[in-house]
């Protein structure tokens, strides 16, 4: 721990101690309170900390592309939604422990004034907390140094309201990204905007897509080697997916890799070495589709991105193929529902693995890839761990793309396993959708065993904390027309609770022994992210508004707090300017699971919100539909 902070803590402790003594009427040996000396020390410590902070965290845009600062924020910040490039969401702060978490209290809060699902992760950098709201995607910078953390500035990108009508699953935003004094946000109407972190001044903005064709952006960008990486949404509207890199300084587009189409569009070249034979060939992004169906084929990149600086590989998932009705697109439908490893400098693909070839159930492949080094077969291997929509936790060798293991973490009726020799998912023909027929008991349902909500890893326990759901569905597919700007789905879905009767779960998964260590059941899907801390406490939120802390080793419930609205955001933990550990989360129910409440849908129609509205009929109406940031600390 840096000396400045130690000094600060010491000073504050003295300060507090002296205040206590005063209140208690106890005087020091000298007959007068020691708070004067404490005050001097505090001021000195704070001054030194500020100076240290000013030089330690660059306040001016960096010209070099050294990827040092965001890679491992040892200073207790949270510069990107995933906390680090490895997507661990693990906070090294250990002040909050199972022993004292029960005393956690709200330190301050902030109302966003925006309705709909608040899925973002609050970022912390340079003494500011950056919060992006759902549409209209306002970016607030809260001054953590001042009491109550009032907003220092608010940036309003003013996205077009027309975008709201083409957002499949609520007009959410999953967070901003901070790098070298700049904050980057995406907007629902496909813009990327860079603002100066300290002042909120707009530096540049780029529009990357076309909302009239149903294209939107909801994901949290990642900044790697001076490049801002973003991907689009819109698979339910027949939008062709892509990932693009913009220059962080100017916003100029450096490269764009599509998820379908010829190799030159997908940026597949001589470096491409997929592990499995099914992924080798030329122009598979065209050949595994009928006719020109790849042009409306989906494969969007709306999940979290990961980066391995040693291998210099960027990992991103691709979403479901369009339409949901699989009979309109025979073939493997590359390169959808899979994971790419690409070089961030040029975007060229190095390897690819398809979680769900010819996806039948809207099993997007965009869930997080947690980069870890785990023992496998006696030696440590660089792997990525990925809980997929199709219900399996995959462990892949992240250098080659080989599947090392794939084990179910929920009840699965749609497939019988993954063949490790060919890498192929083995579908169960009994649950295959057929046009004009209702196929029942499809588990997991379309949002998957786990949807976007990100898991967290603790190196101390060796467990991956997966927030997810336990639900099944009935599906009926039918022919659907592609009409640009309208949905391209072709499926009706009715969702219901899975076996066991509880719709949500937090599972602590051991990827080495390949089974759950423990799991906690919840009445509603756990649609929030998870947070793991070095204090061995895991945080998550529920859709009915409880922010909970459980013991990282056993899952025992330790603490909970009722917020004004359901929680679908990503909890973060940071060290405030005062040296204390804080835990922050956005409350504001919405997203696909909460669409019924936030859009006031009619749950009498079981297919409303693609089946979710009726399945969540009993979700209590929140106190307030508006979002609110909650920040907690030990007293």
């Amino acid at each position, binding site marked *: 721990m840096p000396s400045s902070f130690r000094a600060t803590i010491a000073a504050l402790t003295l300060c507090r101690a002296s205040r206590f003594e005063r209140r208690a009427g106890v005087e020091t040996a000298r007959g007068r309170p020691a708070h004067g000396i404490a005050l001097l020390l505090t001021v000195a410590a704070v001054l030194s900390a500020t100076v240290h902070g000013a030089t330690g965290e660059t306040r001016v845009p960096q010209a070099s592309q050294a990827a040092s600062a965001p890679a491992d924020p040892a200073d207790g910040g949270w510069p990107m939604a995933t906390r680090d490039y490895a997507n661990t969401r693990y906070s090294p702060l250990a002040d909050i422990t199972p022993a004292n978490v029960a005393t956690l209290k709200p330190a301050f809060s902030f109302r966003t004034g925006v309705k709909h699902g608040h899925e973002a992760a609050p970022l912390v950098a340079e003494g500011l907390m950056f919060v992006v709201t759902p549409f*209209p995607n306002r970016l607030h910078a809260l001054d953590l140094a001042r009491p109550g953390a009032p907003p220092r500035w608010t940036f309003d990108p*003013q996205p077009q*309201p*027309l*975008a*709201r*009508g*083409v*957002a*499949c699953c609520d007009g959410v935003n999953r967070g901003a990204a901070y790098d070298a004094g700049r904050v980057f946000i995406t907007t629902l109407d496909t813009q990327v905007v860079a603002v100066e972190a300290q002042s909120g001044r707009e530096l540049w903005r780029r529009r990357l897509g076309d*909302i*009239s*064709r149903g294209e939107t952006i909801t994901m949290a960008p990642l900044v790697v080697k001076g490049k801002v990486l973003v991907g689009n949404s819109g698979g*339910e509207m027949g939008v062709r997916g892509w990932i693009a890199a913009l220059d962080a300084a100017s916003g100029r587009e450096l490269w764009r890799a599509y998820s379908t189409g010829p190799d030159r569009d997908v940026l597949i070249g001589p470096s491409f070495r997929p592990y499995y034979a099914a992924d080798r060939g030329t122009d598979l992004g065209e050949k595994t589709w009928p006719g020109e169906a790849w042009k409306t084929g989906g494969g969007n990149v709306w999940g979290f991105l990961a980066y391995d600086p040693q291998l210099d590989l960027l990992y991103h998932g691709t979403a479901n193929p369009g339409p949901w009705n699989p009979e309109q697109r025979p073939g493997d439908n590359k390169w959808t529902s899979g994971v790419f490893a690409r070089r961030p400098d040029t975007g060229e693909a190095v390897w690819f693995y398809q979680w769900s070839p010819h996806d039948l159930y809207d099993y997007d492949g965009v869930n997080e890839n947690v980069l870890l080094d785990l023992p496998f077969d006696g030696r440590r291997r660089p792997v990525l761990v990925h809980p997929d929509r199709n219900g399996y936790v995959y462990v892949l060798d992240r250098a080659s793309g080989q599947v090392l293991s794939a084990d179910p973490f929920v009840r699965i009726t749609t497939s019988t396993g993954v063949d490790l020799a060919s890498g192929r998912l083995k579908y169960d023909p009994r649950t295959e959708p057929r046009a004009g027929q*209702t196929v029942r008991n499809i588990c997991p349902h379309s949002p998957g065993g786990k949807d976007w909500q990100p898991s967290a890893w603790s190196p101390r326990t060796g467990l991956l904390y997966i927030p997810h759901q336990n639900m099944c569905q*009935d*599906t*009926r597919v*039918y022919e*659907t*027309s592609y*009409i*640009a*700007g*309208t*949905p*391209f*789905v072709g499926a*009706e879905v*009715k969702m219901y609770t899975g076996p066991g009767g509880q719709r949500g779960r937090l599972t602590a998964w051991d990827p080495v022994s390949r089974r759950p260590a423990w799991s906690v059941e919840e009445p509603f899907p756990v649609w929030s992210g998870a947070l793991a801390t070095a204090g061995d406490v895991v945080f998550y939120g529920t859709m009915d508004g409880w922010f909970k802390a459980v013991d990282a080793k056993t899952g025992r419930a330790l603490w909970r707090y009722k917020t004004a609205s359901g929680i679908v955001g990503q909890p973060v933990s940071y060290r405030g300017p005062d040296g204390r550990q804080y835990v922050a989360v956005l409350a504001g129910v919405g997203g696909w699971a909460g*669409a019924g409440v936030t*859009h*006031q*849908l*009619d*749950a*009498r*129609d*079981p*297919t*409303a*919100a*693609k089946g979710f*509205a*009726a399945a969540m009929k009993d979700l209590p109406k929140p106190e307030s539909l508006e979002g609110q940031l909650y920040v907690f600390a030990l007293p």
Partner: protein
Amino acid sequence: MCSRCRERCHRPRPPRPALGLALALSLPLALAGCEREARRLELPPSAPLAAPSKAGVLYPGPYASAPVRVTAADPVVRGQRVEENAYAVSQGKRWFRWFNCSGCHAGGGGGDMGPPLSDDRWLYGHELPQVVASILQGRPNGMPAFAGRVSEEQAWQLAAYVRSLSGQLRSDVAGGRSDAMGSGEPEQRREREVPRPDAAPPTVR
């Protein structure tokens, strides 16, 4: 013939006024049913409505180059009142699926990306001409403009079907049980949702 036979067979029957009355009364009812079932299939085609400027793309929002003039009264469209004609409403149900309305508003009108159509909240008016205007002109929060993309007759049929989703139509005109998986009650069994008077469209900013 034998006289006895004649007696048996030709005994004067007592007058039956009730039968005649019943016949007289049922005739207008039968005729009224004709309107419900009438299918005017050979009407001359209508003029195409002005299309949005950019080819091939459904621009959400009020992009129709010519405003659609609708009157407040329930119009007689090309010889038939759509809301009294079961065929027109069933065609509207067909278009609801064909043109992907069910993609945004869900198969039974419960809502998804677009607001629900089966409840009592109307953002831009619940009268038939107002619904037609919303369909043809588009609306600011993402409803595409379908002027020029659907024929005038199709738009009226669609609007009538949309109103049937909240039970505004008579049960003998609204649709029956769908063949789809299950989108709630059949339209003809839905209770009429009295439109709320003070619903306002969401503010744009």
